[in-house]
């Protein structure tokens, strides 16, 4: 603890060790000169000025939104898709803390971090999209309880706070503030229960948003039980994202795993079993929803009928079978490809519901402007960079280096 308190007085030690990864400042700057960083900088150099311009010039100058298309890429991708892909935090949290599958420990913190950053980016995307974001405060005072969006707003707000508290454990460990992270670690079970509760509500409610627009969403995607589909597919998204993210992490940050072995392949196969079952159930539940909506005859008919088949067969049934086959034959590569398909399938589903199959009968269709795309891309890049910055420093993928305080 002493090293933390005196840190500002001795920048050469603590800052150099904890911020610049043990390098001097010039060394650190030179180490940043990589092709990946150049690409990221280019995306940010476009996206961030556009984000500022949007607040100066308004939505009309930056987006292709119209009177018939009030929601575009920033809601369809940043919010709808971002929140679904960030579901790994509560999925793995529940697996470890509640179901007691301790072997998944090593991927719990990265999953929570991915979730936290995903929600932060989704909220920034939402703020960009709102006409008067400062009036969001009215959510807490105006009692709009008849609105599904009221539920989404409350739950996203509460759950982002829970994720912040969960992430605070490695953050305070990094700072060495034991007084803060000890009690938070003890509260982790309670926080996990809250995270499952809030996630159940808002992951499903994001789907319920469309229940009030039966004439606008294509009958193959519209369902009065859409909240069930959104919740279950969020669990699928969580499982698939954790497989993809842990695979990438263990390749890109291999130096983090020195001295503590994590059998990622074994965890991946375990997750694949869960993924296979949930996706298989989801496939038939969706089919049931279509029948319930009297839309069975529309499957395969016209563009939307075929597009629905692409989503359901190529991005739900196929990865489900690949998960099952891969888990049974211990073929990790097949599982990883299936996870990538699964993640793509969730992206596809959220974009289909909010953009493609929405307004299906309108003659003039929405297509995002380059400025909308640039902001969405910039938010993804910020999330990736923040993830990298944090895992390189804080005890997320690895335990806190025990000698860190001795420098």
């Amino acid at each position: 603890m002493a090293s933390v308190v005196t840190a500002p007085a001795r920048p050469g030690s603590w800052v150099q060790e904890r911020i610049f990864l043990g390098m001097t400042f010039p060394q650190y700057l030179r180490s940043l000169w990589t092709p990946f960083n150049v690409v990221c900088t280019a995306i940010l150099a476009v996206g961030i000025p556009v984000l500022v311009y949007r607040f100066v010039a308004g939505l009309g100058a930056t987006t292709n939104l119209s009177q018939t298309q009030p929601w575009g890429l920033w809601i369809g991708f940043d919010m709808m898709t971002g929140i679904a892909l960030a579901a790994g935090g509560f999925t793995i949290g529940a697996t470890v803390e509640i179901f007691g599958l301790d072997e998944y420990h090593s991927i719990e913190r990265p999953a929570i971090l991915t979730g936290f950053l995903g929600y932060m980016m989704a909220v920034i995307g939402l703020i960009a999209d709102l006409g008067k974001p400062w009036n969001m405060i009215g959510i807490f005072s105006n009692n709009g309880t008849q609105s599904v969006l009221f539920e989404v707003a409350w739950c996203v707000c509460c759950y982002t706070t829970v994720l912040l508290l969960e992430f605070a454990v490695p953050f305070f460990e990094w700072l060495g503030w034991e007084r803060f992270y000890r009690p938070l670690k003890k509260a982790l079970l309670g926080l996990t229960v809250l995270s499952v509760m809030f996630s159940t509500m808002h992951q499903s409610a994001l789907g319920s948003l469309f229940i009030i627009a039966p004439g606008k969403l294509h009958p193959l995607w519209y369902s009065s039980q859409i909240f069930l589909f959104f919740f279950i597919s969020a669990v699928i998204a969580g499982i698939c994202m954790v497989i993809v993210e842990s695979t990438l992490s263990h390749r890109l940050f291999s130096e983090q795993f020195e001295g503590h072995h994590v059998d990622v392949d074994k965890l991946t196969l375990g997750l694949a079993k869960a993924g296979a079952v949930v996706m298989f159930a989801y496939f038939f539940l969706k089919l049931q929803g279509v029948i319930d909506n009297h839309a069975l005859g529309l499957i395969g008919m016209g563009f939307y009928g075929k597009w629905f088949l692409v989503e359901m067969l190529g991005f739900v049934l196929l990865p489900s079978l690949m998960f099952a086959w891969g888990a049974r034959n211990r073929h990790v590569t097949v599982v990883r490809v299936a996870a990538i398909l699964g993640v793509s399938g969730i992206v596809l589903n959220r974009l289909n519901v909010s953009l493609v199959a929405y307004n299906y009968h309108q003659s003039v269709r929405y297509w995002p402007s380059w400025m909308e795309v640039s902001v969405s891309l910039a938010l993804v890049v910020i999330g990736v960079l923040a993830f990298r910055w944090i895992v390189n420093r804080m005890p997320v993928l690895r335990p806190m280096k025990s000698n860190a305080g001795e420098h």
Partner: protein
Amino acid sequence: MKLGRRTFLQIAGATGTAALVALPGRSRAASDVHAVGADESSVLVDTTKCIGCRGCEAACAEANKLPDPPGDDKAYAATRTTGPECFTVVNPTPKADGSTRYVKRQCMHCVEPACASACPVRALDKLATGPVAYDGSKCMGCRYCMVACPFSVPKYEYSKAIPVVRKCTFCSGRQAEGKQPACVGVCPSGALAYGTRGQLVEEARRRVYGNPDKYLPHIYGEHEAGGTNWMYVSDLSFEKLGFEVAVNDNSYPKLVRGALGVPPVVMTLWPPLLMGLWAFSHRDGKNKPHGTDHGAGKADGGNHG
């Protein structure tokens, strides 16, 4: 406990009979005699009486401080929709006999408005007197009202840096002073009738059923979206006139009631259920509870002390 079989059957029979007698009577009363929102102010539009003078457009623009509507040549060149600077439009539809029908469109002011139920900050709210009112100072600009409205009425000021939603106000301010809405006040042909919804449903039925050769047997807005405060009678099908004919006959806010019932169940059931699962998975001999000695921090124990 002393309830004999005979008594039971008597009670059951009496209750059943009462229910049979009471239920149809009550449901007839609800759907026929008293229309929903019977005391709310409403307008009945008779499209057969509209002469297409567009005086309503001009009066609306003046009352709401909007730009002047376009001249006839421009206005009737193509079908127009309402917009952020235009709360009502009159569109022509040619009839088979060579004549033209004109239809005035504006916010329908639903009895149970989808937009107001969708608004999470209650910037849109249904007034007890009838109008669906909007308070821009509360609006956060989520545009969920635009997604929810089955008539695509709310319009957004995309061109402004600090935008609000715009739509017909039903002149709620004028109505509060006891005046008619501006459009109704200037209508020279009697196409717009202003009154309570109860009266106007009666009047619409009188016209439709009194002149079956003239009118189609459909009062648009009587049941659409669960009932609207603006209603229409016509001699040309509402589909041809450009109305949203796919609109549900049920109240739109009711569609989400089931989904909104989920949170209380989840909030009540999930914590005990999850704690039960935790207790089960951490019972003796299974996993050790790992509350304090948890996660990636396992290896760091005490080193920062």
